[in-house]
């Protein structure tokens, strides 16, 4: 692996390394550069990306570094990474059932595997393993089917017996309300540092010439002759040859500006962390039967989540019963956590499609592309989604990884129904 990507970081002092850290320490860190500039928007760009979350920033990064389009702006209404990218439980995996899903999520995991080096930014991608628990005959059938499908798609996948589950997770209560009957392990799955992903892509995109414009809200999409010509923003009109909307929880709002509806709705999705403790759980554990998932961050908090609230909301807060129904299961599966304490709870706005698969698609408006619908589980896809979307925008056609995720599937019936078929989110 190269020390730093010479494409952007010509100056060795700008590149991050042990060396630059040591050098900068000598000057009391006075010489570090801004991670990204804060430019004023130009009057127009080749491509405008709406939304400075991980997916939007990754899209811009790959447009600039791989597609030869660096005259790009990312327009973010708040602070970059402040959407779901900054509030998710950071689970990364590619063990999806259906071929189209496996295609895009595995594409992402392969990119994750070299991402810190590619970006010259440590995103702390930790392939500590991800374990799905099976608590019923039905769960066993589900992991049986999915485990095989994943394996045959060339993705790592292992079944664990109850004894192997216990060995991997000695603290688990095998005899919980729905006893653990087995597990499905993806060793290459794990977690990554959410903020670092946004910041790393932002820094990389910026170095490649992308303008990242924060605190600038898109308030309108200008369409002429059914073709997009730019976006109205809180800082004025910004022209664009092509526009990519990567606004996650706000996708319907952007779609409405462009005059159409999307096959998705927004819900609050909550998560919580415990106080930090010394390492106690070394893999990511997901249980659909007991309804909780948990991992431990490098800082030591248990990062815990469960299902989403079931009403439309843009409020970034959910209702407390969800927390009760997350903490209860946590203690059922890991009774020893009962004396630990919850430190903070929060919520994001997730954009959920009926089939629980994302949308990467052309739209009724020419040159306006949408990347959304990642719902409760798109963090893991960040690099793959950005990569596929960038190449598709550049080509003007969805590439073969993105193509199955078109909006048209909701009319033709060609759903990619991970929700119905596998019922596993995140």
């Amino acid at each position: 692996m190269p020390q730093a990507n010479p494409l952007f970081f010509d100056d060795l002092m700008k590149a991050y390394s042990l060396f630059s850290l040591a050098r900068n320490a000598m000057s009391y860190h006075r010489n570090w550069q801004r991670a990204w500039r804060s430019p004023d928007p130009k009057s127009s760009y080749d491509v405008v990306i709406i939304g400075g979350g991980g997916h939007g920033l990754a899209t811009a990064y790959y447009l600039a570094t791989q597609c030869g389009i660096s005259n790009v702006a990312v327009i973010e209404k708040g602070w970059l990474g402040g959407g779901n990218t900054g509030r998710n439980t950071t689970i990364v995996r590619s063990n999806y059932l259906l071929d189209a899903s496996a295609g895009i999520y595995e594409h992402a995991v392969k990119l994750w595997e070299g991402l810190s080096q590619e970006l010259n930014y440590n995103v702390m991608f930790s392939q500590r393993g991800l374990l799905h628990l099976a608590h019923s005959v039905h769960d066993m059938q589900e992991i049986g089917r999915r485990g095989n499908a994943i394996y045959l798609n060339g993705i790592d996948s292992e079944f664990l017996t109850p004894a192997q589950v216990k060995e991997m997770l000695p603290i688990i209560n095998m005899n919980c309300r729905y006893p653990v009957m087995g597990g499905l392990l993806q060793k290459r799955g794990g977690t990554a540092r959410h903020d670092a992903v946004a910041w790393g892509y932002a820094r990389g995109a910026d170095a490649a010439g992308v303008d990242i414009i924060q605190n600038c809200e898109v308030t309108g999409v200008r369409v002429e002759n059914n073709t997009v010509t730019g976006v109205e923003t809180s800082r004025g009109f910004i022209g664009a040859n092509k526009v990519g909307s990567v606004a996650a929880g706000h996708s319907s709002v952007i779609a409405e500006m462009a005059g159409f509806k999307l096959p998705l709705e927004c819900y609050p999705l909550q998560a919580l962390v415990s106080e930090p403790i010394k390492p106690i759980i070394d893999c990511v554990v997901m249980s659909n039967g007991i309804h909780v998932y948990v991992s431990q961050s490098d800082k030591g908090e248990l990062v815990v989540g469960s299902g989403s609230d079931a009403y439309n909301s843009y409020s970034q807060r959910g209702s407390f019963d969800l927390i009760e129904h997350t903490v209860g299961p946590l203690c059922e599966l890991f009774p020893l956590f009962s004396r630990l304490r919850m430190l903070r709870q929060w919520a994001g706005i997730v954009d959920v499609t009926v089939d629980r698969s994302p949308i990467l698609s052309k739209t009724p408006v020419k040159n306006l592309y949408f990347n959304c619908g990642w719902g409760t589980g798109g963090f893991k896809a960040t690099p793959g989604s950005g990569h596929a979307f960038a190449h598709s925008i550049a080509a003007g056609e969805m590439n073969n990884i993105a193509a199955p995720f078109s909006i048209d599937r909701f009319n033709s019936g060609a759903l990619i129904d991970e929700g119905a078929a596998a019922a596993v989110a995140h």
Partner: protein
Amino acid sequence: MFIINCPYCGDRDQTEFSCHGEAHIPRPTETAQMSDDAWGNYVFFRTNPKGYHRERWLHTHGCRRWFNALRHTVTDEFVTTYKIEDPRPPLPTESQTSSDGRQS
């Protein structure tokens, strides 16, 4: 945690209810004549507004009646609830909206 006013039972805790999504989407009658797009639109596409939303709720642990509600999706505040057969209440005017139009 909302308090929801069941039009039959009065104010109740949110956990007695379940939400069933956007209201006032009548099932088309002559479905055979519909295009795939029109049908798909009925089944899957939703307004999902950032603002006032008319939606269906069920008093699950109570009288088991469905009813409609008008709620703001940013403040999460209910403007009103109404029986299925009642006409749609108008949207509140600007001055009546909550002071908290906070951005998310």
